[in-house]
């Protein structure tokens, strides 16, 4: 099965890091990223910029506004797709991602969603 993993982070807290702190964080993430890539389960992985744009329908017209689509402190800052035998294996693999380790102070965490196979039920 394929699973979409959304890494949520807190933009404000990330913005409050000094340059040195940010560089140190990136350095700490590198070996974890490497492990995730090495796992043989990863289909794709991306980091996202924070700037967001929302497109939706209003009075029958498509309108464009500043995002995010849903107002919350935590926003999606990264995403990856994995192929796993089942949900528990997906949890184990997602646990390799930095967002699972560095979460406590910076509000990072991962949401795992199975990718619907064929039709929606």
């Amino acid at each position, binding site marked *: 099965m394929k699973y979409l993993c959304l890494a949520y982070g807190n933009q404000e807290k990330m913005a409050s890091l000094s340059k040195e702190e940010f560089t140190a964080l990136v350095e*700490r993430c590198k070996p974890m990223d490497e492990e995730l890539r090495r*796992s043989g389960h990863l289909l794709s992985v991306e980091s996202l910029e924070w700037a967001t744009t929302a497109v939706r329908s209003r009075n029958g017209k498509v309108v464009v506004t500043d995002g995010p689509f849903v107002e919350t402190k935590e926003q999606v800052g990264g995403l990856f797709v994995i192929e796993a035998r089942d949900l*528990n294996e997906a949890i184990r693999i997602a646990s390799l991602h930095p967002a699972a380790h560095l979460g406590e102070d910076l509000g990072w965490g991962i949401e795992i969603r199975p990718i619907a196979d064929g039709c929606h039920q």
Partner: protein
Amino acid sequence: MTEDALRARIEALYQRDGPVVRAALIRLLGDFDLAEEALHDAFAAALQTWPAAGIPERPRAWLVSAGRFQAVETLRRRARFDAALAELAERIAADARPEDPDEDAIEDDRLRLIFTCCHPLLPPEASMALTLREVCGLTTEAIARAFLATAPTIAQRIVRAKAKLKEARVPFEVPGRSEMAARLDAVLRVVYLLFNEGYAAASGTHLTRADLCREAIRLGRLLVELLDEPEAQGLLGLMLLHDARRAARVAADGRPVLLADQDRSLWNRTQIEEGAAWTERALRSRRFGPYTLQAAIAAVHAEAEAAAATDWAQIVGLYDVLLRVEPSPVVELNRAVAVGMRDGPAAGLALVEAILATGRLADYVPAHAARADLCERAGRLEEARAAFAQALRLAKSEPERRFFAERLARLGPG
């Protein structure tokens, strides 16, 4: 061999031996998640090296060794961001013996794993989910379907169970003699619960539930294969005998069919013979317990060619022994019903009323159903109506309600 043929061989090996290799790795590495990863890495290594080197003589042992090697490499790499792993890596590397793990030890690893998954530390529902995933190789999603639960619920149950075992440092081993009886009890209870979970709702609309019965029987077979314990044989006998009646238990419209009304030509005779053989073997040991006794009762029913030919005297006798071994109001009730068949409804009714008078089975549907049936047979129709109405009020499933409503209607207005 072409590359495609080799891939197919490796895939078949994964299907057949994956659970065994996984169990061996869990013992060697002492960690479920690390073992799962090592299993994956071992098969990846096989895909890489076997095309050139050929399939090793003992592929399972090769996979276990490769998995252990890969796990040590993984832990050494991860020590870069989790220092605690360095020590673990070196401990596993030091444990590694130069010779290949032998085949018998690998076979026994499945047994060790069952004892770990069914450790008394874990609640039964956690043991059931963990056993199905780690021993039987079912996916979280399949387990969730069988238990009519969501996949995230089952996934969390499994994650918590693993964490609990790790925290308590539960060793991966078959318990020693002093602990054996209590630990085996816990294992048999989990297997029996699994079976009942599948058996209780085995109607046509819940086909996936039948998988639970199949897995429980497979676990039962594994236990008798690896362990010479009469109660494990008795439990296997009990499950086979009950499961043999599957096709006759439920009518086309989903209503339960009572044992007495079942079409016995639908019973699986081969399975009844096998179940009876395991039961007899357990009985001969003279070290049997409640599972074997229940199996013996099921065997007496199974051997009767028609309901009227049932040897009720023998069934009452077996219930007497069962009551001494494991006293319970439900067993008392079943014995009372058997007495009602042996000595007539008045005798059975007196016993059922005495049990109900204690208040212990006040909300137990079968108790009211038994009372209703005995009253009807004894010609006490007014009381039969009241008891069927009570069973109807307490019934939890729709087919059950329909069944009691029909019995009530058949009695006519009072």
